[in-house]
């Protein structure tokens, strides 16, 4: 690793000033599990590292019954996986946290870092001056693209690697972003950006802005949520394709719901047409099959990754069948 100037700010304001001052040459550092990989491989060579671990009040999980779950950005992924109230009321989130990386990485990595992690594309991580690194070519287009996106791509074809983001979006989570002199809270659906919006970043964070909290509304008793992840290795791995769903069931029908896919797009992928179709859908197998035809309808796979489309659709069906009693045809 190349030497860098090390900052350990004591307040969010101080961190924000440091980050804004030297945005191009400084990197924000939380758990460090992703950043250290980027630094060791020379993918990023910042002159300054701003370690956020000294910031107070960001390592708490606050659960207000009937209202919201608030998770500080520095909360470790292991804490989320093991938290009794999260396991009980937000099973999808606990499942996604427990399936993230390995025990060691879950003890080190934070939720804030997890949602802000950089892509795992092997051209981006490797010795290729690709589009996302300021080059003029996405090597995945003509190259090895088995793990790349099938929808929402172009001109770069990354997928967002996080498990948690997929679930957070299905649960209607919001992200609080703070900077010196201000703050805002945005839905996760507005936090991530596609390559066509910003080729060099995966989220909306601007110079000096820092993620401080994640807020998740507490579901009522009729809401069910779950997460299914397909990976190539049986033990820890990034998702090839994943799906999260939260559905509200009443009177033998789905009253409302959200389905979000991971591993298929440069951001957690949610389709309004699919969510609309969920409304009022009877819990019958034949009706669920309609969803299959609808999901990822606009997908344009690359040469090696068309398999992701049926995989994602089938995962979605398996998850819905796990969440609700389905009447066979």
């Amino acid at each position, binding site marked *: *690793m*190349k*030497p*860098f*100037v*090390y900052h*350990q700010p004591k307040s969010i304001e101080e961190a924000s000033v440091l980050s804004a001052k030297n945005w191009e040459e400084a990197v924000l550092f939380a758990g*460090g*599990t992703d950043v*250290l*990989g980027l*630094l*060791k491989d020379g993918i990023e060579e910042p002159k300054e*590292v701003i*370690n956020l*671990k000294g910031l107070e009040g960001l390592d708490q999980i606050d659960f207000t019954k009937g209202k919201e779950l608030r998770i500080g950005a520095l909360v470790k992924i*292991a804490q989320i996986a093991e938290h009794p109230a999260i396991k009980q009321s937000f099973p999808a989130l606990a499942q996604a946290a427990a399936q993230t*990386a*390995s*025990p*060691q*990485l879950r*003890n*080190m990595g934070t939720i804030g870092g997890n949602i802000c992690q950089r892509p795992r594309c092997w051209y981006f991580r490797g010795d290729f001056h690709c589009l996302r690194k300021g080059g003029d070519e996405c090597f995945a287009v003509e190259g090895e693209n088995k793990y790349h996106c099938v929808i929402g791509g172009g001109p770069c074809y990354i997928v967002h690697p996080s498990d948690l983001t997929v679930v957070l979006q299905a649960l209607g989570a919001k992200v609080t972003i703070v900077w010196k002199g201000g703050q805002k809270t945005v839905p996760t659906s507005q936090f991530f950006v596609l390559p066509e919006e910003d080729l060099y970043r995966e989220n909306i964070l601007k110079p000096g802005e820092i993620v401080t909290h994640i807020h998740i509304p507490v579901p009522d008793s009729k809401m069910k949520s779950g997460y299914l992840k397909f990976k190539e290795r049986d*033990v*820890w791995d990034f998702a090839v394709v994943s799906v999260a769903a939260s559905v509200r069931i009443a009177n033998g029908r789905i009253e409302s719901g959200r389905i979000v896919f991971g591993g298929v797009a440069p951001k957690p992928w949610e389709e309004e047409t699919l969510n609309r179709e969920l409304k009022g859908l009877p819990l019958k197998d034949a009706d669920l099959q309609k969803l299959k035809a609808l999901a990822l309808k606009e997908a344009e796979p690359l040469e090696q990754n068309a398999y992701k489309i049926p995989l994602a659709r089938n995962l979605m069906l398996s998850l819905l069948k796990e969440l609700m009693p389905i009447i066979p045809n």
Partner: protein
Amino acid sequence: MPNKKKPSSLSRRQFIKGVSTGVAGTIATTKLARALPIEKLEKAAPPEGHLPLELKVNGKPYQLYVEPQTTLVEVLRNELQLTGTKVSCNHGECGACTVLLDGKAVYSCHILALDAQGKSVTTIEGLLNGEELHPIQKAFIKKDGYQCGFCTPGQIMSTQALLLKNPNPTKEEILDGLSGNLCRCGAYPKIIESVEEAAKVK
């Protein structure tokens, strides 16, 4: 017989110890600029670019000056000569460098030494009771939970972390608890048996 006895008097362990001390010694000399024991500097101002680090390793307090990019395993192996912790991938993926940080398993190659500030680190050396092996180490020997042995310190530290949290793990929980440790020899079935044995005897 006496002829045969002499060469074998140098045990494998002593041999490895001799070699690894030599290697560690060389590294410590070449990397001296990266981390220095504070007492050696007589509390002088830190060298340029260095920051003070205080941590406990296996119960013993240490004060050093480190460059910010120094990882925890570099301090353990190169400065404190605790070479039981191994580095294999140096990328936070294989688990050979697993140590406990405040009782939780972490990859020491993938954490800045400065992030262990004020914390308590346990390495494989810290499991020993004097010269006596820890029950987990004994279990790994009894069940043959290794082949080449390079990943073993990490496997054992993950076992320790798992059993501290969950003294009676199911097989599923063992598989999950040790999922962050790779074994290139593929000794996994014996490693799992060793963990089961350790949970039984501890």
